[in-house]
């Protein structure tokens, strides 16, 4: 009796313990086929203010595609927080969608898994050629010297959003062009429960985007030319210190922003709690939160001195979404047709208008729909002063480790601890040591 009970207890114990262990794994087969030419599954990333809005935007277009090609597309809109994990799981099991959206910064990391269809000349020919796309967008589709792992779909760039009324009330005539000006303006604006600038301190990816730009402005990179992590060089340390310093030293960012990770800073901006926001394609989001378009202005992200441009006057990452095809799709031709459809001039206009992004397709970008003053700022930035995040296989790890280091530094700043060169360096050193050794 007791033995059975012990055995049962043992079984229960083991089952409880194993919950901690093991992620299942399997192998997947090689290339794709055309075994199932009538349907496609598509994982769309969440672009609009909600998943419902995305479905409303996408479904009529997918119906149009079905009419043209006879291929039915089953779409699933995946929230950002789940997307990378879902892609990884699909990669491991081989049970993924046929076509999917990826964040363009993940291109090289996902390319390294070998799960995505390479876009060689032959595949590009099926969708009208590589020349149709803007160069900066092509720069974040995979590692240099390899066939791209994806095709650009939506392009975005960072800009400085500023509240016109707050600026007028504080007697500021024009948006700041340099960081010194931004800090000076920010100090004027940070009073009476309002703050100069908003930030998203606990959002690891957002942190990376900003410190990447600051590093470029300090003439530094996070990786050496041969692709090794180099997070503790002086330029990078100065860059991170300057960004976190906007809260720690300059005190123009509310300490509470250190725990923001759900776009709360965008809501704060829409409500007038922050006078400035560094964001990519915020228009649709601000509109959905009831902020009218003439209430805010859009200016280029500040630089250290002078005007934005190439080299050390980079003021944005190349942000955007790419479209990729899973290598083991059962509908290779259909997938190519679908990518061609989504990147066609007409669809690019419709989709990028809906998401307030910029088309990475040259012809569509020239359309009058994208010539509003705000779009011109974004287009200019993408064309002249944006740089792609490092296209290395370790990019995903870099985002996490350095983004987390910045998050910890923000937490320290919020608690009132000083953010010094030494404390920044220590956090970055830890981040670097967590990177996989090659």
């Amino acid at each position, binding site marked *: *009796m*007791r033995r*059975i009970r*012990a055995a*049962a*207890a043992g*079984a229960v*114990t*083991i*089952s*409880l*313990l*194993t919950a*901690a*262990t*093991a*992620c*299942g*794994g399997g*192998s*997947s087969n090689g290339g794709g086929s055309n075994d199932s030419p009538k349907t496609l599954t598509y994982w769309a990333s969440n672009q609009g203010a909600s998943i419902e809005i995305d479905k409303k935007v996408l479904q009529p277009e997918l119906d149009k595609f079905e009419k043209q090609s006879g291929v039915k597309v089953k779409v699933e809109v995946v929230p950002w*927080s789940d997307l990378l994990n879902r892609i*990884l799981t699909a*990669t*491991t099991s*081989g049970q993924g969608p046929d076509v999917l959206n990826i964040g363009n910064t993940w291109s090289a*990391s*996902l390319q*390294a*898994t*070998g*799960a995505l269809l390479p876009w060689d000349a032959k595949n590009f020919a099926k969708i009208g050629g590589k020349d149709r796309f803007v160069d900066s967008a092509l720069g974040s589709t995979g590692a240099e010297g390899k066939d791209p792992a994806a095709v650009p779909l939506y392009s975005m760039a960072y800009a400085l959003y500023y509240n016109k009324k707050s600026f007028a009330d504080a007697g500021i005539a024009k948006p700041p062009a340099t960081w010194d000006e931004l800090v000076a303006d920010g100090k004027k604006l940070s009073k009476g429960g309002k703050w100069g600038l908003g930030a998203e*301190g*606990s959002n*690891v990816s957002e942190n990376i985007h900003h410190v990447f730009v600051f590093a470029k402005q300090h003439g530094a990179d996070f990786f050496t030319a041969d692709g090794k992590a180099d997070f503790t060089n002086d330029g990078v340390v100065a860059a991170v210190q300057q960004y976190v310093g906007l809260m720690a030293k300059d005190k123009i960012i*509310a*300490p*509470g922003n*250190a*725990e923001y*990770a759900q776009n709360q800073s965008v809501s704060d901006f829409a409500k007038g709690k922050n006078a400035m926001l560094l964001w990519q394609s915020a228009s649709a989001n601000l509109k959905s939160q009831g902020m009218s378009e003439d209430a805010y202005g859009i200016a280029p992200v500040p630089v250290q001195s002078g005007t934005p441009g190439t080299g050390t006057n980079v003021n944005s990452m190349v942000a955007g979404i790419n479209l990729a095809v899973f290598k083991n799709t059962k509908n290779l031709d259909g997938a190519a047709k679908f990518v061609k459809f989504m990147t066609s001039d007409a669809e690019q206009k419709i989709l990028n208008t809906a998401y307030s992004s910029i088309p990475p397709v040259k012809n569509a970008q020239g359309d009058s729909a994208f010539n509003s003053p705000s779009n011109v700022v974004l287009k200019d930035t993408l064309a002249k002063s944006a740089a792609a995040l490092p296209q290395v*296989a370790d990019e*995903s*790890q870099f985002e*996490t*480790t350095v*983004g*987390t280091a910045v*998050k*910890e530094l*923000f*937490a*320290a700043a*919020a*608690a009132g601890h000083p953010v010094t060169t030494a404390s920044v360096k220590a956090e970055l050193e*830890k981040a670097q*040591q*967590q*990177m*996989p050794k090659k």
Partner: protein
Amino acid sequence: MTTTTAASADPGERTVRKDSPGAARGPRRTGRIRRIGLPYLLLLPALLLELLVHLVPMVIGIVMSFKELTQFYIRDWGTAPWSGLDNYKVSVDFSAPVGKALLHSFMVTVGFTLLSVGLCWLIGTAAAIYMQDTFRGRGLLRALFLVPYALPVYAAVITWVFMFQHDNGLVNHVLHDQLHLTDKPSFWLIGDNSFYALLVVSVWKGWPFAFLIVMAGLQNIPGELYEAAALDGAGLWQQLRRITLPSLRAVNQVLILVLFLWTFNDFNTPFVLFGRTAPESADLISVHIYQASFVTWNFGTGSAMSVLLLLFLLVVTGAYLLLTSRGRKTADV
């Protein structure tokens, strides 16, 4: 002891056998086969499922821990090169960052688990004893106590996230604005305080289970014991120490073991509370391993850490079972 159990069970079995047709043919023989085989037969489906759902993935996990599994091999992990004990060496090299971080996370988890289990048990037991007396509204209160246990974890924890927020959260509103206990609003979801935030949520979530189990255990204590004790002049405290707690011993053993394992491995609470990367002070080991595997894509190292965790928990559980069963033996004698 075994013989007494068998003997006392026999009369009952015989009455059942009279009704069954199989028993009419050969009562004694089938009876013996049934007595020996039936329990195993009944365990078989569970064992098969156990094999499929847990043991197979566990073996795969162990295999993975000996491989150099990164993004380059994740698609076809069978082809990943063997790395021998490298993943384990990295995990337990406490002078290097990966091992140091794992050790830190382990220590945090141990402290957190001891505190959380202790508090859950204490509150659960106190509430269960309190609820023994009948009073008006007892049923309602009992149902209320069980609410945290019945709520979906995600919904409950996300509500806590709102409450812990720095600017608009209820916790700061009460502690700072109303009670003036702090100089300025505190941060609960980042920095050092996050440990306490996690502890509060964990205890809030865990104690109703302790309450439920202890309450069930209390039903089995005969009321006469208390009456006799009261007649002998034992006060409430003495009754608690000499009757209630010893009688709950077996129940508590299981309860504490289960609470320990759940809390030690809890992933949902910290993940919903802090997201993919937890603050250092609340870096529980399950999230830490998740981060090593799925966020920094070092699946091999992550698997090795899982195996180490499994071994640790097996040792602790084994030691605990051994100690408590020895205790029971001496108690029996």
